[in-house]
């Protein structure tokens, strides 16, 4: 750069810097609608920097090497700014404590430089130190800000308006694309919903198989089913011929109906036959009961004969009282007969002995014995003869 002169073609860096600073400061102050320069440059950083550049000694401008010396640049900057910050911090212009932390950092760095250490080649390390020192404070400040009612009152309408705008824009976009006969997002989503529903049905079928209330058809079961179907088919084959005979079947059916109508009285007849059989059985029973009738009739006849005979006996017994009247007389006679009998008994005894001797040689029954009781036979000829007659019968 020419000595003592500013370049005509290319802009002076300091002039450029000044112009940039003034422009941006004005822009910031107008945007924030606050006290312009004071708000935009509350710490007078840029002003102090510009001032230091302007008031830099000539050697720094004339000596390129001197200008490029990092240490001198650093010292210059440090001396021009630290004082201002310290003053601001001490006067209460450091509500967050950031300036204090920054000043401490700067002083530590300056001490290292003064002790002979080289400037950090890695500017990031310097930045990280600054971040580590101030991040907690920044974080607290920001968190307090975003949780405040003022912030929420700003964000709430912003979110609502953004959502409304987005919805309106999306609906308009849909309508526009639809008017171009181009599938829209909602069309694609509708198709996707159908696919999802189909997948859900498949999942339900899958669940049915897994849960066990539906079973997969195996090859064996299918083969068995096929054979059963074949058997049924073979059985159904004659149906074709049967169908042909359906007409004949109808005639036969009619004839059968006719026969049936004729056979209908059979049932009544059968009932009657059954009744006849019952009657036959009953007749048989009656006959069996009547079988003893002849015997009974004979007995009745005999009873009648007996009745006649009884009448005869009665008639005869009617004479009994008369006979009994004579019994007294007979008693006397009996006594007389007893006397006679006693006499005769002796005779009889002798005769019996003789008879016994005679019977030893013969076999005649003793039935003749009653004959040997003449009293009885004479006194009771009527009775004995009747008794004998009765006994004979």
């Amino acid at each position: 750069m020419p000595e003592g002169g500013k370049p005509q073609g290319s802009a002076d860096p300091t002039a450029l810097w000044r112009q940039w600073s003034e422009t941006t400061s004005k822009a910031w102050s107008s945007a924030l609608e606050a006290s312009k320069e004071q708000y935009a440059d509350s710490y007078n950083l840029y002003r102090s920097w510009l001032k230091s550049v302007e008031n830099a000694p000539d050697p720094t401008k004339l000596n390129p090497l001197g200008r490029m010396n990092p240490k001198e640049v650093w010292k210059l900057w440090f001396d021009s700014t630290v004082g201002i910050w310290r003053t601001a911090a001490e006067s209460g212009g450091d509500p967050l404590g950031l300036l204090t932390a920054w000043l401490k950092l700067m002083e530590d760095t300056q001490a290292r430089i003064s002790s002979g250490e080289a400037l950090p080649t890695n500017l990031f390390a310097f930045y990280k130190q600054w971040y580590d020192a101030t991040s907690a404070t920044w974080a607290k400040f920001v968190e307090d800000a975003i949780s405040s009612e003022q912030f929420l009152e700003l964000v709430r309408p912003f979110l609502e308006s953004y959502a409304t705008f987005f919805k309106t824009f999306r609906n308009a976009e849909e309508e526009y694309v639809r008017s171009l006969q181009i599938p829209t997002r909602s069309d694609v989503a509708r198709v996707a919903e159908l696919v999802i529903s189909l997948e859900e049905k498949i999942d339900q079928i899958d669940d049915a198989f897994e849960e066990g209330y539906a079973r997969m058809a195996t090859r064996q079961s299918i083969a068995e089913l096929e054979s059963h179907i074949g058997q049924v088919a073979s059985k159904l084959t004659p149906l074709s011929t049967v169908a042909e005979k359906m007409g004949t079947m109808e005639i036969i059916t009619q004839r059968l109906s006719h026969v049936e109508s004729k056979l209908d009285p059979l049932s009544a007849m059968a009932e009657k036959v059954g009744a006849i059989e019952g009657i036959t059985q009953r007749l048989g029973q009656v006959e069996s009961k009547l079988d003893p009738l002849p015997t009974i009739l004979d007995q009745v006849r005999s009873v009648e004969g007996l009745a006649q005979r009884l009448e005869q006996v009665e008639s005869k017994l009617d004479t009994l009282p008369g006979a009994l009247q004579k019994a007294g007389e007979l008693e006397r006679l009996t006594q007389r007969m007893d006397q006679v009998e006693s006499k005769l008994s002796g005779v009889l005894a002798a005769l019996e002995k003789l008879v016994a001797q005679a019977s030893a040689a013969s076999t005649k029954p003793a039935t003749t014995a009653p004959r040997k009781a003449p009293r009885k036979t004479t006194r009771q000829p009527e009775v004995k003869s009747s008794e004998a007659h009765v006994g004979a019968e």
Partner: protein
Amino acid sequence: MTQELSTEFGIEDTLSTLKKYETGMRILLEGVQANTGQTPKEVIWTKNKAKLYRYAPEVEKRFPVPILLIYALINRPYVMDLMPGNSLVEYLVHQGFDVYMLDWGTPGDEDKNLTFENYVLDYIPRTVRKVLKHSHADEFTLLGFCMGGTMAAMYAALFPDKPLRNLILLTAPIDFTLENLGLYGVWMDEKNFNPDQLADAFGNIPGDLIDTGNRMVKPVTNYVGTYVTMWDRILQDKSMDTWLAMNKWVNDGVPFPGAAFKQWIREFYQQNKLVKGQIFLRGRRVDLSRITCPVLNIAGKRDHICTLPQAQATMSLIGSKDKEFFVLDAGHVGLVTGSDAKKNLWPHLRNWLEPRSK
């Protein structure tokens, strides 16, 4: 370059520094490239966008009771299988467990009406049947992480009996009392936030929006500190694998189905119905006291997404006799990955599971 510069800085040092800056700028401009979820696995079942993974056993299976991992509906589940050497899944597989994971997938416009009824009563039970069938087991351990833990707790309350053997809740928010929610309690309050408006406008809530909301809980740490850490590790020649994998996962959010989002905000964050027993899924009341299986409830002291009281409330609500509340000095994700997790959580998990998985 002046002689002073060459002596002050050294050309080689400068070139090295420039190379490092190039690495950092490439990450910022091109995005994070990292290989995650590297534990060998196979898909054994799918439903809609969800996939059920079974991790290939590398050692002989020692425990007949399989483990089913369920993550939240937002973000990807490979946080539990972040990278080789830093993977909970890998660890469990090497310990002889039969490990399964349900990946909810990326919902599309057609999924905007999916609710917790669908997830808890359709997806999870069907997944359980597939796990049991595939592992030839009749019992299983359910591990839920974050919102997945909330869903796991609801499932366990509705299906407390066999085949559920054990329940593990990893930073699972159960109690949404306003005072315990931190910044979420302020933002999700009924007078400040209307979930219906967002759901009606977007259908599925964009993953970026969910991610922004989560990052704004710790804005300086998440938006500035993350990249300060990145540059620090690059410039100090430290390994970038974990940072890259974690950053990839953080930025890999998935949309949140609108109907489920409305449920999550209204019934959980705004009305805190779960602890009151007022959550009904298809007419069935979710009563956490019906949970009777062994429960391991894990939480992080520095977790600002699921605060300690949110997880601790579970212990007084469940009916289990065998239950443990395990607290680590870690954050929401640091609980599961990282060196602290390897030293503390993983062994404790194995020791707790071992006698309960035979």
